[in-house]
């Protein structure tokens, strides 16, 4: 078997050195009763060629955004990732490295994580960031718990403009810890005002920016209300590319930013793996979950990078740790960092402008269609439209024509009559003129 270096000869020789007759001798601690009676019912080993053709066959059953006009967003965005990114992250020394516990032989990982943290802090407008979380939703949930530790309060107010998955993950995690979570109604009309709800028991308020329905709102008033009440403002960002064009949450008073990093450097990959970003202010650093890389000097005075403030973490503090997280999203963080490094200051801004321009153009095209009504006054690269038919059916019709036409809000909020004609439509730089024409034509047909 190609992945196993030992041969039968090796095995015999090693058993001789060990002084055992059969391999079973080494498993003698396994109780008889726990040894399976029947053999495992799975096929035997396969050649690379066989495995490859099985996967090719499965992959061919999918309609991929790589080939189809695609307008899907709602927390996951298709962007063009430069070829250099994927090449570099596949280098063995990155891909197959262990967690950088041994700094002498992990400076590569440690330095890129340090760069990642710095970039995340920069684009969010915050003071510090950690070395990554699993994804945006878990980052959001951890941010709420972190706010609880900072404020020593138990109540969280969750905006109706927050991604439903983020809402669920946050509410679930808090519930098991006995924390109160106030989930406000879906805010598709953009009328939500949470300032009035913040009170002296409130630990944090969680909003998304741009929100789930695509709106961009000034968070300064809400931040002010939070801070006056001694609460923290947690801002979730699902589309980090937006931060190339709009004000960073940090500039509007956010205390913790919990973001999804997939858009930069990472393929959609059916939703995972991606990378969660978390950034905050220095004063809250000791309550932050996850790994943190810091700069240090070695005994020769040479600069180096090390895991720092580890006393927050599970491997030191066990049940007193700020989180149970261990393995996080190192390699996806690297992809994020390389992509952002390739973009640079100007490229990042241009990419964001390009996304916005595509969405503006798409919006004006769609609004010309009978049966389409725009819900948003503001948006970045995604907006919500109300159709004259249930959005889920329309999307199925479009899929039948090879068009991935958007995300029906009902996919995420299924039991609401209010929402079932709403469609989330996103346009990134990957959307071409002919893609837009295909969607416009497809929608015209589907809605008439």
């Amino acid at each position, binding site marked *: 078997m190609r992945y196993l270096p030992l041969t039968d000869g090796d095995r015999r020789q090693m058993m001789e050195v060990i002084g055992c007759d059969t391999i079973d001798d080494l498993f003698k601690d396994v109780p008889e009763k*726990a040894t399976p009676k029947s053999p495992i019912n799975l096929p035997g080993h396969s050649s690379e060629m066989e*495995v*490859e053709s099985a996967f090719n066959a499965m992959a061919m059953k999918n*309609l991929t955004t790589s080939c189809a006009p695609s307008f899907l967003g*709602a927390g996951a965005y298709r962007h063009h990732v430069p070829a250099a990114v994927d090449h570099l992250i596949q280098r063995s020394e990155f891909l197959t490295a262990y967690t950088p516990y041994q700094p002498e*032989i992990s400076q590569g990982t440690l*330095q890129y994580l340090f760069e990642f943290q710095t970039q995340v802090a920069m684009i969010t407008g915050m003071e510090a960031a950690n070395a990554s979380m699993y994804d945006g939703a878990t980052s959001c949930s951890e941010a709420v718990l972190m706010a609880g530790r900072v404020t020593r309060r138990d109540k969280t107010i969750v905006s109706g403009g927050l991604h439903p998955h983020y809402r669920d993950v946050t509410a679930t995690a808090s519930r098991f810890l006995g924390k109160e979570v106030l989930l406000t109604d879906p805010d598709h009309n953009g009328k939500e005002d949470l300032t009035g709800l913040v009170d002296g028991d409130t630990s944090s308020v969680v909003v998304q920016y741009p929100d789930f329905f695509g709106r961009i709102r000034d968070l300064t008033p809400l931040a002010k209300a939070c801070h006056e009440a001694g609460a923290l403002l947690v801002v979730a960002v699902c589309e980090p590319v937006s931060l190339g064009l709009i004000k960073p949450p940090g500039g509007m008073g956010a205390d913790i930013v919990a973001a999804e990093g997939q858009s930069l450097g990472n393929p959609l990959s059916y939703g*995972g793996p991606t990378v969660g970003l978390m950034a905050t202010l220095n004063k809250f650093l000791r309550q932050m979950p996850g790994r943190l890389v810091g700069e240090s000097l070695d005994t020769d005075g040479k600069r180096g990078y090390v895991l720092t403030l580890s006393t927050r973490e599970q491997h030191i503090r066990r049940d007193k740790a700020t989180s149970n997280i261990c393995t996080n999203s190192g390699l996806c963080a690297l992809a994020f960092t390389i992509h952002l490094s390739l973009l640079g200051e100007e490229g990042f801004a241009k990419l964001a402008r390009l996304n916005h321009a595509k969405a503006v153009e798409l919006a004006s095209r769609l609004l010309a269609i009978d049966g389409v009504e725009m819900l948003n006054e503001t948006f970045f690269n995604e907006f919500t439209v109300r159709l004259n038919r249930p959005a889920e059916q329309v999307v199925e019709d479009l899929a039948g024509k090879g068009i991935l036409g958007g995300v029906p809000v009902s996919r995420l909020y299924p039991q609401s009559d209010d929402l079932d004609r709403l469609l989330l439509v996103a346009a990134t730089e990957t959307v071409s003129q002919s893609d837009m024409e295909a969607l416009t034509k497809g929608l015209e047909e589907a809605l008439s």
Partner: protein
Amino acid sequence: MSEATITGNRGLQLEEPLIFEQDNPGAAGVDLGDVDTAETRLGGLERSHPIGLPSLSEPQVVRHYLRLSQKNYSIDSGFYPLGSCTMKHNPRLNEKMARLPGFAGLHPLQPISTVQGALEVIDKCAGWLRELTGMEAIAMSPAAGAHGELTALMCIRSALEDRGDARQRILVPESAHGTNPASAHFCGYGVDSIPADNRGRVDLAAMKEKLDTDVAAIMLTNPNTCGLFENDVLEIADAIHEAGAFFYCDGANFNAIVGRVRPGDMGIDAMHLNLHKTFSTPHGGGGPGSGPVVLSADLAPYAPLPFVVHGPDGFTLVEHAAGGGAKPFGRVKGFHGQFGVFVRALAYMMSMGADGMRQVAEDAVLNANYLLACLKDSLSLCFEGPCMHEVLFDDGFLKDTGVTTLDFAKAMIDEGFHPMTMYFPLVVHGA
């Protein structure tokens, strides 16, 4: 060889400053045309200050990250004699499969009719894992081992609460990985530590002493972090179940028994699997991982959303509480889990097959015991063998030599090895 150079480089060993120190405003690693932004819909919230990101051309960025990579050790470079974290070969086939456009290009919210192949991957991967563990059900969405632990405990808590049983404590052996007590805490439980006996196993008597109706579960690692099989596992399971509690197993060390021993035969109710360990997906310098949780029939109904079911018209993805027998406790992650990691793990399992997976366990245990036999006279063995996936030594052999465990680790680095695990488990001297 030891004189300093002007650049700080030395032949192929190249210094590399931070990317921020290489900023060259005006350079760019991408070409994006100028954009017409006459019309904007930003509500006046345009960013007003520059971010300060460094600007570099593509060759500069490539060189930067190439040079950083050269400062790393990796499994492709050499041997990691680590305990607990199974570092194994990461086949390139897996990477290639995960990058097929039909997988990498899938959006998580595409219509279900357009992702039948993806759901088939999830279902197949789940099926292999269930069969290998002999367990009833599986929750695929946890993002890593610790996340799987938490998910498993949430299932347990939900099951207990569903029967009105508000237990408050979890038993965790001293030698457990730090994530175990941390996960217990984040599931709202108190942690009760149980000691090891002098054979490096859970002290059965001590455990039974702590076992009462307030105990929700035990979190046992088996094989444990001393590298030993908990041979009282069936007694432990019985005692736990008798007390009305659940038996959770930390499956991080599953590599030592995969294909030979099934958790389902040991009375285990829940166990997480680290696909980035036993199932060959890359560690990536700290992720991404994937931590599916296998569940017994009792716990199965509480598994979190979403999950794949196979109906007459193909696969469906259940994303919302649906009634029927299912009582999902909620959701632990955005979208549907670490799909790209599933592709890799499935490619590995299919490559190895049932026979290969069993051989994996046998070879791992053989290797560890071989090291035990070769080193037991030079180092100080903690516990008699046979061991499982790893062998534990303490620092006794260094006593009065003036050499510390850390010195020893540094010497290993000099010799081209990643050092052994040192800070852990806490039950031995020198950790």
